[in-house]
């Protein structure tokens, strides 16, 4: 009650777009009671979980949250137009690091200002976030500014039908001359041969194809291919690690015509040639559905699909491992995103939005998301993984199916294994260039050399266009 009273007093003085009056000590969470905020997000598991259980936040702050969930491309479009309108209608933004943060970071609020504001509640320690994710999901260009807090963390891993590997593993080993089970030193070449064996023995196993890909002309194709590019030693730019982690306005020259990049493209083409034929029309959802329907024995997939797999017809039959190695390393695409505050919105609404960002990424909320029946998601804080109940859930039978692949995911998150695509302002156009050129390669219209040289050319044009835009801005 006292809180409500002080909130009313506080609101009484809040007519304008900003307010410098101090809230009653201990009542920082209530100072924006009565405000309504809009949160725009991709239709992802954590947002579904949060949408289903917003009461705790509303009770804590008195702030009403309206959530809009959209397919990623549609969401990016709405966010960009909102930034352009200058209205700031969506105060809380799902700040995809590549499609929102890199091109529009000037329109996102710097969260360090809120973290340093004595009148606002502070985030639980930032160093509790999984080490690389604060940079990858929250920053652009330098470490001085923070545009988002890590919110989700899907990562590509190797999913395989362990029931088939248990049953036919010995025979496969004899026929192939190596252990087909995922090992530390499993290579993409081993993966190819295993898939070929599984396809040849489809009558025996009852599963028609060895593996599948998400090779539709879509963002999924870039994600899928990048694992091979990096594994074979190829890079998008000279310093891919930095460009992927912090991002850069000056990424340098594209490196896509290197011998390593060509080898990666060639191997990808080879893999798709024996994969489930529907791979060419599948994005990640299509591939996951095909895998769950028993269409193939292996697939490189986002680990968060485990929550669906573990309630499907193949529950309990799937094993999870980090992706195979190439001549250089194992590379596992990280697709994590942060949530940030719209810098175009009025200052008071920005501060209220900060409260939501804090709440949505704090330990208790992440645990609740993980347990949610409608969501799932993956925590981005180390402290959540350290909880006994979460740790226990990493072994079957598990009440938290998203935890089952976590051993593989932790491997994938190691600096030597993680794959981070370039975080550059021109990424939307570069992404479209690469998945279009790869699609042409897979359709047999061009070879890997032509594919990679066309992609490089497209990257150069896109970067030049983006530079011109930035100069004008």
């Amino acid at each position, binding site marked *: 009650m006292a809180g409500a009273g002080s909130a009313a007093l506080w609101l009484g003085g809040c007519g304008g777009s900003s307010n410098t009056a101090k809230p009653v000590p201990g009542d920082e969470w209530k100072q924006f009671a009565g405000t309504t905020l809009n949160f725009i997000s991709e239709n992802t598991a954590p947002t579904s979980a949060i949408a289903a259980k917003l009461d705790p936040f509303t009770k804590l702050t008195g702030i009403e949250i309206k959530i809009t969930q959209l397919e990623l491309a549609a969401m990016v*479009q709405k966010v960009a137009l909102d930034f352009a309108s200058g209205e700031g209608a969506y105060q809380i933004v799902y700040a995809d690091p590549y499609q929102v943060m890199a091109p529009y970071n000037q329109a996102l609020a710097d969260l360090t200002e809120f973290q340093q504001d004595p009148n606002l509640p502070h985030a639980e320690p930032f160093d509790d976030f999984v080490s690389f994710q604060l940079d990858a999901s929250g920053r652009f260009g330098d470490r001085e500014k923070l545009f988002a807090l890590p919110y989700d963390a899907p990562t590509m891993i190797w999913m395989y039908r362990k029931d088939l590997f248990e049953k036919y593993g010995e025979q496969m080993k004899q026929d192939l001359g190596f252990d087909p089970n995922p090992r530390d030193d499993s290579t993409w070449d081993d993966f190819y041969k295993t898939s070929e064996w599984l396809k040849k023995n489809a009558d025996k196993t009852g599963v028609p194809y060895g593996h599948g890909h998400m090779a539709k*002309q879509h963002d999924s194709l870039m994600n899928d291919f990048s694992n091979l590019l990096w594994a074979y030693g190829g890079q998008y730019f000279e310093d891919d690690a930095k460009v992927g982690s912090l991002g850069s306005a000056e990424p340098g020259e594209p490196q896509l015509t290197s011998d390593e990049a060509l080898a990666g493209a060639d191997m990808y083409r080879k893999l798709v040639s024996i994969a*489930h*034929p529907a791979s060419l*029309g*599948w994005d990640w959802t*299509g591939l996951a*559905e095909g895998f769950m329907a028993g269409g193939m024995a292996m697939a490189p997939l986002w680990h968060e699909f485990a929550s669906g797999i573990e309630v499907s017809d193949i529950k309990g039959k799937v094993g999870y491992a980090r992706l195979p190695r190439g001549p250089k390393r194992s590379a596992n695409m990280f697709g994590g995103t942060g949530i940030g505050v719209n810098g175009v919105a009025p200052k008071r609404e920005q501060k209220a939005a900060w409260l939501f960002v804090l709440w949505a990424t704090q330990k208790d909320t992440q645990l609740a998301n993980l347990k949610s029946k409608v969501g799932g998601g993956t925590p981005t804080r180390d402290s959540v993984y350290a909880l006994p109940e979460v740790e226990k859930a990493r072994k079957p039978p598990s009440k938290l199916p998203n935890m089952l692949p976590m051993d593989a995911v932790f491997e994938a998150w190691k600096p030597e294994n993680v794959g981070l695509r370039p975080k550059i302002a021109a990424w939307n156009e570069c992404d479209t260039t690469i998945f279009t050129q790869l699609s042409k390669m897979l359709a047999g219209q061009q070879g890997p050399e032509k594919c990679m040289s066309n992609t490089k050319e497209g990257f150069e044009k896109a970067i030049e266009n983006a530079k011109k835009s930035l100069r004008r801005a």
Partner: protein
Amino acid sequence: MATTTVDERPREASAPRAKRKESRYSFEARMMTPALLVLALLSIFPFVYLILMSLSAVGLIGGISLDFVGLDNWTRLFTDSAVGASWLRSVVYFILTVGLEMGLGIAIALLVHELVWGKNIALSLILMPMFMAPVIVGLLGRFLTDSTYGLYAWVLRETGLYSGDILGTTTAAFLAVTLMDVWQWTPLIALIVLAGLASVPGQILEAAKVDGATYLQRLRHIVLPTIAGVIIVALLIRSMDAIRYFDIITNTTNGGPADATKIVPIRLYETGFRFFDLGYAAAIGLSMLAVSILLANVFLRILKRRGLAR
């Protein structure tokens, strides 16, 4: 005297008429002003703004800003091989969809016209697809052609006709999105042609029949010439729509695979709302508008030549 009287009458009569004419003109102008203002607001202002955008680099952050770049976007448009390829695809798609829709629509209308009973039920069933939102047709098409659970994919696979992924291979995907559009809009042509068939004089057909003309002869020499105007109107309506085809492709292939279904509207959307290169998108959009106007004029000229339009 008589001459004077005759001379004055017209002067007296024409003066008030001129006054009335003037006042009527200003009344019309006053009445039309609000409508013209609304039209200006809704059409003319955006059109002029679009032209300005096509001559500018459009910035988004911190509010929309236009930076004049002259004819850069237009030069790029005419030298961009990717846009050229999209135009080529659009032409093939246009010929296929409109051609199939016209052929099938006329055939269905002729069949339904001959029905003695069950005409209303048949017509209701035939018209159903065109009452669906194109986005739903796209989703339905995607569902039916999905390799994992799609009925059409399953039928084609089981009958051995096609085992690949329908939306994952270039030719199949192009044909699939074409057929989805044909499925939805053939009924519209059938409906328009059916309305035209009602105007074919029964006595002439009877007379031709008595004179021994076969069905095909009656069709060629009586029916088709009579309904030619209606057919051209149907063609005009569908052509205008086919140029803007977007929803079904967005929901099925989104331009892929290998750009096989990336027709001009998809490229326009991608340029405008994925790359936010709004200046260039405006140039592409205006080029689409020019083609639409050109096409509409061709059809209107045909109608005029036949004396069916003023």
